[in-house]
């Protein structure tokens, strides 16, 4: 308990870095896909749930298109999309805009970890 203030500050900063300060204001349920995007030299993908649920019921993507309801369980590649699977079932220029608009999906800040963002209000140490 008699640690000098400097080492305490250093510890605190290290803690902040380790915790990877969560982005406080992302929209609830925004999903970041970044298992491949940055390795391939693109920005991470951000999927906004709110935008899609205004236009489609959950069931369309989560039953018809085969998106599993667990962050990290769907590995989506551009190849899939161009061949009409996953996002490509709608993003084909017919139902929604075609995949050539790279920067609309690939719009995340570099270095974002994949996962579901925007959590609950508190963004504290808990999961929700």
């Amino acid at each position, binding site marked *: 308990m008699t640690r000098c203030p400097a080492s305490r500050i250093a510890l605190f900063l290290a803690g902040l870095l380790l915790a990877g300060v969560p982005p406080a204001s992302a929209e609830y349920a925004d999903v970041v896909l970044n298992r491949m995007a940055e390795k391939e030299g693109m920005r991470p993908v951000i999927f906004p749930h709110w935008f899609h649920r205004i236009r*489609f019921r959950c069931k369309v993507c989560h039953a*018809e298109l085969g998106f599993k309801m667990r962050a990290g369980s769907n590995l989506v590649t551009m190849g899939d999309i161009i061949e009409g699977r996953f996002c490509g079932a709608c993003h084909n220029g017919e139902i929604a805009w075609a995949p050539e608009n790279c920067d609309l999906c690939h*719009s995340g800040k570099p270095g974002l970890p994949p996962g579901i963002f925007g959590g609950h209000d508190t963004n504290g140490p808990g999961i929700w």
Partner: protein
Amino acid sequence: MITQHFSTLVAGLLVAAAIPGQALAQNDTGKAVYDKVCVACHSAGIAGAPKFGDAKDWAARIKAGMDTLYESAIKGKAPAMPAKGGATDVSDADIKAAVDYMVAAAKNGGSSAAAPAPAAAPAAAAPEAAPKPRPAALSFNRLLKPASKRNPPPPEDGIHDPDNDGSYALQPPLSVFEGLPRSNAGNRINWVKALDSNQIAPRWDRTDPTAAPVVMDLNIVREVKGSMPDVVYPHKQHTAWLDCSNCHPQIFIPQKGANQISMAAILLGQKCGVCHGKVAFPVSECRICHSKKKDVMPVKNANAQ
């Protein structure tokens, strides 16, 4: 005096920056096409694209000859360059103009300020958008979002890249949310109410806008331990959004008494927590689920007799 010196200096810098800019501006069509199409990858050098104004990136390509460059631009080039940068409606001549524009910039880029110019514009705009972020430690509650920070437009939400042009083309949530019934958590929209009152009409089928869900109106009451009111699970609100197969049988066995559910499991993202806390309203809204008052305690009845 100091300010005067400073303004002279700034004016001098601006003039210096404008000279190469003017030389480039001669190729107006090329610049227009570049700003609309090519900029997406070539401004930052994404996916191996030669970066705008970077003499080093372009040198080898310019050496290969302009005809080769034109061909790569029009027909596309592996691995990442799509034909005409994806904008197939642009004429060949305009694409060539854009190539000329980029090559000119690369040739100037080695010696002049042409390269930083496109990057400088968003950087200058950013401080205006966010004037003075208050240090987190001075907020009333560091963990609670103040009203001004709810539902921000994509470029300001902390996960979209403000340097990406596409971030500005995305719809800001508030432009839709303003007319919808509000709630206290999540997106701060009461989605169930919005759907019930036909304020939103999300499709039930990917292609058929007229398809309607088969809504099942069946409430399941789950008695809970302790003093919390019992949980009423409404199939109705769930089947309006979801298919039976989304929950049954993987998450919930469709049989009364067969499912062990606890708040701990929900907080870990199991059972109800597959959606609630991630995309549906979070568990902070206790009373939406715990909504059925328990019967009067039997002990009291015994005293009355």
